[in-house]
Protein backbone atom coordinates (compact mmCIF):
# COMPACT_ATOMS: atom_id res chain seq x y z
CA UNK A 1 0.00 0.00 0.00
CA UNK A 2 3.05 2.27 0.40
CA UNK A 3 3.44 2.72 -3.30
CA UNK A 4 -0.24 3.57 -3.69
CA UNK A 5 -0.52 6.51 -6.07
CA UNK A 6 -4.05 7.81 -5.80
CA UNK A 7 -5.93 9.35 -8.66
CA UNK A 8 -7.36 12.64 -7.46
CA UNK A 9 -9.57 14.95 -9.46
CA UNK A 10 -9.91 18.58 -8.44
CA UNK A 11 -12.66 20.63 -10.02
CA UNK A 12 -11.29 24.15 -9.74
CA UNK A 13 -13.10 27.41 -10.21
CA UNK A 14 -11.43 29.66 -12.80
CA UNK A 15 -11.70 32.70 -10.54
CA UNK A 16 -10.02 31.27 -7.46
CA UNK A 17 -8.57 27.78 -7.19
CA UNK A 18 -7.39 27.61 -10.78
CA UNK A 19 -5.82 31.03 -10.48
CA UNK A 20 -4.31 29.99 -7.14
CA UNK A 21 -2.74 27.01 -8.86
CA UNK A 22 -1.03 29.44 -11.24
CA UNK A 23 0.22 31.45 -8.30
CA UNK A 24 1.53 28.28 -6.68
CA UNK A 25 3.29 27.47 -9.92
CA UNK A 26 4.95 30.85 -10.24
CA UNK A 27 6.03 30.66 -6.59
CA UNK A 28 7.53 27.24 -7.40
CA UNK A 29 5.51 25.65 -4.62
CA UNK A 30 5.51 21.88 -4.69
CA UNK A 31 2.18 20.12 -4.40
CA UNK A 32 1.01 16.55 -4.74
CA UNK A 33 1.48 15.41 -8.34
CA UNK A 34 -1.49 13.00 -7.94
CA UNK A 35 -3.94 15.87 -8.19
CA UNK A 36 -5.36 16.47 -11.66
CA UNK A 37 -6.97 19.85 -12.14
CA UNK A 38 -10.07 20.51 -14.17
CA UNK A 39 -10.84 24.12 -14.87
CA UNK A 40 -14.45 25.11 -14.26
CA UNK A 41 -16.12 28.48 -14.96
CA UNK A 42 -17.51 28.30 -11.40
CA UNK A 43 -17.60 25.66 -8.68
CA UNK A 44 -21.39 25.83 -8.99
CA UNK A 45 -21.06 24.56 -12.52
CA UNK A 46 -19.76 21.14 -11.41
CA UNK A 47 -22.32 18.58 -12.46
CA UNK A 48 -23.04 15.98 -9.77
CA UNK A 49 -23.13 13.28 -12.43
CA UNK A 50 -19.59 14.19 -13.50
CA UNK A 51 -18.36 13.82 -9.92
CA UNK A 52 -19.96 10.39 -9.72
CA UNK A 53 -18.52 9.46 -13.09
CA UNK A 54 -15.07 10.40 -11.83
CA UNK A 55 -15.49 7.83 -9.08
CA UNK A 56 -16.87 5.34 -11.56
CA UNK A 57 -13.81 5.78 -13.76
CA UNK A 58 -11.52 5.06 -10.88
CA UNK A 59 -10.84 8.30 -9.03
CA UNK A 60 -9.76 7.65 -5.44
CA UNK A 61 -10.74 11.13 -4.35
CA UNK A 62 -12.52 14.14 -5.76
CA UNK A 63 -12.68 17.67 -4.53
CA UNK A 64 -14.31 20.86 -5.63
CA UNK A 65 -12.51 24.10 -4.98
CA UNK A 66 -14.44 27.35 -5.16
CA UNK A 67 -14.18 30.94 -4.03
CA UNK A 68 -14.49 32.09 -0.44
CA UNK A 69 -18.10 32.20 0.65
CA UNK A 70 -19.57 35.58 -0.28
CA UNK A 71 -16.98 36.08 -3.04
CA UNK A 72 -18.50 33.96 -5.78
CA UNK A 73 -18.27 35.65 -9.15
CA UNK A 74 -21.77 34.38 -9.80
CA UNK A 75 -23.02 35.23 -6.31
CA UNK A 76 -24.03 31.80 -4.99
CA UNK A 77 -22.34 29.20 -7.18
CA UNK A 78 -19.97 28.12 -4.43
CA UNK A 79 -22.82 27.79 -1.91
CA UNK A 80 -24.66 25.60 -4.41
CA UNK A 81 -21.51 23.57 -4.93
CA UNK A 82 -21.13 23.03 -1.19
CA UNK A 83 -24.71 21.74 -0.91
CA UNK A 84 -24.21 19.46 -3.88
CA UNK A 85 -21.03 18.04 -2.44
CA UNK A 86 -22.78 17.40 0.87
CA UNK A 87 -25.62 15.66 -0.95
CA UNK A 88 -23.22 13.61 -3.05
CA UNK A 89 -21.31 12.57 0.05
CA UNK A 90 -24.50 10.87 1.17
CA UNK A 91 -24.96 9.29 -2.24
CA UNK A 92 -21.45 7.82 -2.37
CA UNK A 93 -21.82 6.62 1.22
CA UNK A 94 -24.86 4.68 0.04
CA UNK A 95 -22.67 3.15 -2.63
CA UNK A 96 -20.13 2.05 -0.06
CA UNK A 97 -17.57 4.74 -0.90
CA UNK A 98 -16.25 6.68 2.08
CA UNK A 99 -17.78 10.18 2.03
CA UNK A 100 -14.36 11.58 2.99
CA UNK A 101 -13.24 10.84 -0.54
CA UNK A 102 -15.25 13.84 -1.66
CA UNK A 103 -14.65 17.35 -0.33
CA UNK A 104 -15.35 21.01 -0.90
CA UNK A 105 -12.75 23.72 -0.30
CA UNK A 106 -12.89 27.48 -0.48
CA UNK A 107 -9.96 29.74 -1.25
CA UNK A 108 -9.11 32.94 -3.08
CA UNK A 109 -7.17 33.38 -6.31
CA UNK A 110 -4.18 34.85 -4.49
CA UNK A 111 -3.71 31.91 -2.09
CA UNK A 112 -1.15 29.87 -3.96
CA UNK A 113 0.15 28.45 -0.70
CA UNK A 114 -3.31 27.48 0.45
CA UNK A 115 -3.88 25.75 -2.89
CA UNK A 116 -0.77 23.63 -2.41
CA UNK A 117 -1.76 22.93 1.18
CA UNK A 118 -5.21 21.71 0.17
CA UNK A 119 -3.77 19.49 -2.56
CA UNK A 120 -1.27 17.97 -0.15
CA UNK A 121 -3.71 17.52 2.72
CA UNK A 122 -6.37 15.92 0.55
CA UNK A 123 -3.82 13.63 -1.10
CA UNK A 124 -2.58 12.61 2.33
CA UNK A 125 -6.15 11.87 3.40
CA UNK A 126 -6.78 9.68 0.35
CA UNK A 127 -3.48 7.87 0.80
CA UNK A 128 -4.59 6.98 4.31
CA UNK A 129 -7.95 5.76 3.04
CA UNK A 130 -6.27 3.60 0.41
CA UNK A 131 -7.61 2.78 -3.04
CA UNK A 132 -11.27 3.49 -3.80
CA UNK A 133 -13.56 0.59 -2.91
CA UNK A 134 -14.60 0.53 -6.55
CA UNK A 135 -11.27 -1.15 -7.23
CA UNK A 136 -12.41 -4.14 -5.19
CA UNK A 137 -14.19 -5.08 -8.38
CA UNK A 138 -10.92 -5.31 -10.28
CA UNK A 139 -9.68 -7.83 -7.75
CA UNK A 140 -12.60 -10.08 -8.61
CA UNK A 141 -11.50 -9.93 -12.21
CA UNK A 142 -7.87 -10.72 -11.36
CA UNK A 143 -9.00 -13.85 -9.60
CA UNK A 144 -11.26 -15.06 -12.33
Amino acid at each position, binding site marked *: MNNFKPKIIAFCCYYCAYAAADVAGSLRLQYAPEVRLIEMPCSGRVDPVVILKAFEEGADGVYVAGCMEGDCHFLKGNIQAKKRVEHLQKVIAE*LGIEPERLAMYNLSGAQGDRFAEIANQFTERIKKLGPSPIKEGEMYNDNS
Partner: protein
Amino acid sequence: MIIAEPKPIQEVAEYIKEYHKVLVVGCGGCTSVCLSGGETEADILATSLRILRKKEGQKLETVVTTATRQCEPEFIDGLKELVDEAEAVISLGCGVGVQFLAERFQEKWVLPALNTILAGGTVQPGQWEERCGLCGDCQLHLTGGICPVIRCAKSIQNGPCGGSQNGVCEISTEMPCAWQLIYEKLTVLNRLDLMLAYRPAKDWSKERSGGPRKMKREDAAL
Protein backbone atom coordinates in the same frame (compact mmCIF):
# COMPACT_ATOMS: atom_id res chain seq x y z
CA MET B 1 -48.06 17.82 -8.43
CA ILE B 2 -47.13 14.32 -7.39
CA ILE B 3 -44.17 14.24 -5.03
CA ALA B 4 -41.94 11.21 -4.94
CA GLU B 5 -38.68 10.47 -3.19
CA PRO B 6 -35.82 8.21 -4.27
CA LYS B 7 -35.68 4.70 -2.92
CA PRO B 8 -32.36 3.69 -1.39
CA ILE B 9 -29.99 2.92 -4.27
CA GLN B 10 -29.10 -0.47 -2.82
CA GLU B 11 -32.77 -1.42 -2.95
CA VAL B 12 -33.00 -0.55 -6.64
CA ALA B 13 -29.73 -2.39 -7.26
CA GLU B 14 -31.27 -5.46 -5.66
CA TYR B 15 -34.25 -5.32 -8.07
CA ILE B 16 -31.98 -5.53 -11.09
CA LYS B 17 -29.26 -7.83 -9.78
CA GLU B 18 -29.87 -10.47 -12.41
CA TYR B 19 -29.77 -8.08 -15.35
CA HIS B 20 -26.82 -6.79 -17.33
CA LYS B 21 -28.49 -4.14 -19.41
CA VAL B 22 -31.15 -1.84 -18.07
CA LEU B 23 -32.98 1.17 -19.38
CA VAL B 24 -33.28 3.99 -16.86
CA VAL B 25 -36.23 6.24 -17.67
CA GLY B 26 -36.55 9.63 -16.06
CA CYS B 27 -39.77 11.60 -16.15
CA GLY B 28 -39.99 15.21 -17.22
CA GLY B 29 -43.19 15.73 -15.26
CA CYS B 30 -43.77 16.03 -11.52
CA THR B 31 -40.84 13.91 -10.38
CA SER B 32 -38.52 16.10 -12.38
CA VAL B 33 -39.88 19.21 -10.68
CA CYS B 34 -39.49 17.71 -7.22
CA LEU B 35 -35.91 16.77 -8.11
CA SER B 36 -36.40 13.03 -7.69
CA GLY B 37 -36.84 11.64 -11.15
CA GLY B 38 -35.70 14.05 -13.84
CA GLU B 39 -32.85 13.81 -16.32
CA THR B 40 -30.13 14.52 -13.76
CA GLU B 41 -31.54 12.11 -11.19
CA ALA B 42 -31.85 9.39 -13.83
CA ASP B 43 -28.21 9.91 -14.75
CA ILE B 44 -27.11 9.88 -11.10
CA LEU B 45 -29.04 6.70 -10.46
CA ALA B 46 -27.63 4.97 -13.53
CA THR B 47 -24.08 5.98 -12.59
CA SER B 48 -24.63 4.86 -9.00
CA LEU B 49 -25.93 1.48 -10.14
CA ARG B 50 -22.92 1.04 -12.42
CA ILE B 51 -20.56 1.94 -9.57
CA LEU B 52 -22.19 -0.64 -7.32
CA ARG B 53 -21.92 -3.27 -10.02
CA LYS B 54 -18.31 -2.33 -10.76
CA LYS B 55 -17.45 -2.78 -7.10
CA GLU B 56 -18.56 -6.38 -7.46
CA GLY B 57 -16.29 -6.76 -10.44
CA GLN B 58 -19.19 -6.94 -12.84
CA LYS B 59 -20.55 -4.81 -15.58
CA LEU B 60 -23.85 -3.11 -15.86
CA GLU B 61 -24.84 -1.41 -19.05
CA THR B 62 -27.25 1.44 -18.61
CA VAL B 63 -29.10 3.49 -21.15
CA VAL B 64 -30.57 6.68 -19.79
CA THR B 65 -33.47 8.52 -21.30
CA THR B 66 -36.19 10.82 -20.09
CA ALA B 67 -39.80 10.83 -21.20
CA THR B 68 -41.59 14.15 -21.32
CA ARG B 69 -44.22 12.58 -19.07
CA GLN B 70 -44.46 8.88 -18.31
CA CYS B 71 -48.19 9.15 -17.68
CA GLU B 72 -49.02 9.79 -21.35
CA PRO B 73 -48.99 6.95 -23.88
CA GLU B 74 -47.76 9.21 -26.65
CA PHE B 75 -44.63 10.09 -24.71
CA ILE B 76 -43.72 6.51 -23.86
CA ASP B 77 -44.51 4.88 -27.19
CA GLY B 78 -41.26 6.31 -28.50
CA LEU B 79 -39.27 4.35 -25.91
CA LYS B 80 -40.11 1.04 -27.56
CA GLU B 81 -36.76 0.46 -29.28
CA LEU B 82 -34.79 1.29 -26.16
CA VAL B 83 -37.04 -0.92 -24.06
CA ASP B 84 -36.67 -3.81 -26.51
CA GLU B 85 -32.89 -3.63 -26.23
CA ALA B 86 -32.89 -3.65 -22.43
CA GLU B 87 -33.46 -6.59 -20.12
CA ALA B 88 -35.38 -4.48 -17.64
CA VAL B 89 -36.61 -0.94 -17.21
CA ILE B 90 -36.16 1.29 -14.17
CA SER B 91 -38.66 4.11 -13.96
CA LEU B 92 -38.07 7.36 -12.13
CA GLY B 93 -41.69 8.29 -12.65
CA CYS B 94 -44.26 8.22 -9.89
CA GLY B 95 -46.38 5.09 -9.39
CA VAL B 96 -48.40 6.17 -12.39
CA GLY B 97 -45.36 6.32 -14.63
CA VAL B 98 -44.16 2.87 -13.57
CA GLN B 99 -47.57 1.40 -14.32
CA PHE B 100 -47.97 3.13 -17.65
CA LEU B 101 -44.60 1.76 -18.72
CA ALA B 102 -45.44 -1.71 -17.40
CA GLU B 103 -48.76 -1.70 -19.25
CA ARG B 104 -47.24 -0.44 -22.47
CA PHE B 105 -44.36 -2.92 -22.40
CA GLN B 106 -46.09 -6.14 -21.37
CA GLU B 107 -43.06 -8.41 -21.70
CA LYS B 108 -40.73 -6.33 -19.56
CA TRP B 109 -40.14 -5.91 -15.87
CA VAL B 110 -40.57 -2.22 -15.10
CA LEU B 111 -39.12 -1.43 -11.69
CA PRO B 112 -39.71 1.60 -9.50
CA ALA B 113 -36.82 3.81 -8.43
CA LEU B 114 -39.00 6.14 -6.37
CA ASN B 115 -41.53 6.00 -3.59
CA THR B 116 -44.51 8.11 -4.50
CA ILE B 117 -45.56 9.93 -1.37
CA LEU B 118 -47.99 12.74 -1.83
CA ALA B 119 -49.95 15.22 -3.90
CA GLY B 120 -48.68 18.61 -2.91
CA GLY B 121 -46.47 21.50 -3.80
CA THR B 122 -43.18 23.30 -3.18
CA VAL B 123 -43.45 25.32 0.04
CA GLN B 124 -39.86 26.53 -0.33
CA PRO B 125 -36.98 25.37 -2.49
CA GLY B 126 -36.20 21.81 -1.51
CA GLN B 127 -39.31 21.33 0.60
CA TRP B 128 -42.59 19.84 -0.51
CA GLU B 129 -45.76 19.35 1.45
CA GLU B 130 -48.98 17.42 1.09
CA ARG B 131 -52.07 19.42 0.20
CA CYS B 132 -54.61 17.17 -1.50
CA GLY B 133 -56.09 13.85 -0.40
CA LEU B 134 -57.68 13.15 -3.80
CA CYS B 135 -61.01 12.49 -2.08
CA GLY B 136 -63.04 13.26 -5.18
CA ASP B 137 -65.39 15.61 -3.36
CA CYS B 138 -63.66 18.92 -2.68
CA GLN B 139 -64.88 20.77 0.39
CA LEU B 140 -62.35 23.59 0.40
CA HIS B 141 -65.12 26.15 -0.05
CA LEU B 142 -66.22 25.32 3.47
CA THR B 143 -62.83 25.33 5.13
CA GLY B 144 -61.18 28.48 3.89
CA GLY B 145 -59.06 26.58 1.40
CA ILE B 146 -57.39 24.27 3.91
CA CYS B 147 -58.02 20.56 3.46
CA PRO B 148 -58.90 18.62 6.60
CA VAL B 149 -59.11 15.35 4.70
CA ILE B 150 -55.38 15.19 4.17
CA ARG B 151 -53.94 17.81 6.48
CA CYS B 152 -55.72 16.52 9.57
CA ALA B 153 -54.14 13.23 10.68
CA LYS B 154 -57.61 11.91 11.50
CA SER B 155 -59.36 13.42 8.46
CA ILE B 156 -61.81 14.93 10.90
CA GLN B 157 -64.64 16.87 9.30
CA ASN B 158 -65.77 18.72 12.44
CA GLY B 159 -62.48 19.66 14.03
CA PRO B 160 -60.29 20.43 15.77
CA CYS B 161 -60.06 17.34 17.95
CA GLY B 162 -58.82 17.41 21.53
CA GLY B 163 -55.27 16.75 20.41
CA SER B 164 -54.79 20.22 18.99
CA GLN B 165 -52.59 22.38 21.19
CA ASN B 166 -50.46 25.45 20.52
CA GLY B 167 -51.40 25.24 16.86
CA VAL B 168 -49.86 21.85 16.30
CA CYS B 169 -51.19 18.34 15.84
CA GLU B 170 -50.87 15.72 18.55
CA ILE B 171 -48.92 13.42 16.25
CA SER B 172 -46.09 15.87 15.61
CA THR B 173 -45.04 19.25 16.91
CA GLU B 174 -43.79 19.98 13.41
CA MET B 175 -47.24 19.50 11.93
CA PRO B 176 -49.67 22.38 12.13
CA CYS B 177 -53.19 21.44 13.15
CA ALA B 178 -55.25 21.80 9.98
CA TRP B 179 -58.30 22.82 11.99
CA GLN B 180 -56.31 25.51 13.80
CA LEU B 181 -55.37 26.86 10.38
CA ILE B 182 -58.98 26.65 9.26
CA TYR B 183 -60.08 28.44 12.41
CA GLU B 184 -57.59 31.26 11.84
CA LYS B 185 -58.46 31.61 8.19
CA LEU B 186 -62.21 31.61 8.78
CA THR B 187 -61.74 34.16 11.55
CA VAL B 188 -59.96 36.47 9.13
CA LEU B 189 -62.71 35.91 6.59
CA ASN B 190 -65.34 36.46 9.28
CA ARG B 191 -66.93 33.12 8.39
CA LEU B 192 -66.65 31.11 11.60
CA ASP B 193 -70.27 30.13 11.01
CA LEU B 194 -68.93 27.61 8.51
CA MET B 195 -66.97 25.91 11.22
CA LEU B 196 -69.93 25.90 13.55
CA ALA B 197 -72.15 24.14 11.03
CA TYR B 198 -72.32 20.38 11.44
CA ARG B 199 -70.54 18.57 8.62
CA PRO B 200 -72.31 15.27 7.93
CA ALA B 201 -70.43 12.01 7.31
CA LYS B 202 -68.50 12.27 4.11
CA ASP B 203 -69.22 10.31 0.96
CA TRP B 204 -66.05 8.28 0.76
CA SER B 205 -67.26 6.34 -2.26
CA LYS B 206 -65.77 9.10 -4.36
CA GLU B 207 -62.31 8.49 -3.00
CA ARG B 208 -60.12 5.36 -3.16
CA SER B 209 -62.58 3.52 -0.92
CA GLY B 210 -65.14 3.37 -3.70
CA GLY B 211 -62.76 1.52 -5.97
CA PRO B 212 -60.42 2.67 -8.74
CA ARG B 213 -61.70 5.86 -10.33
CA LYS B 214 -61.96 7.09 -13.87
CA MET B 215 -62.63 10.37 -15.55
CA LYS B 216 -63.95 10.75 -19.07
CA ARG B 217 -64.26 13.65 -21.47
CA GLU B 218 -66.24 12.61 -24.51
CA ASP B 219 -65.20 15.67 -26.49
CA ALA B 220 -61.53 14.89 -25.96
CA ALA B 221 -61.84 11.32 -27.18
CA LEU B 222 -60.41 10.45 -30.57
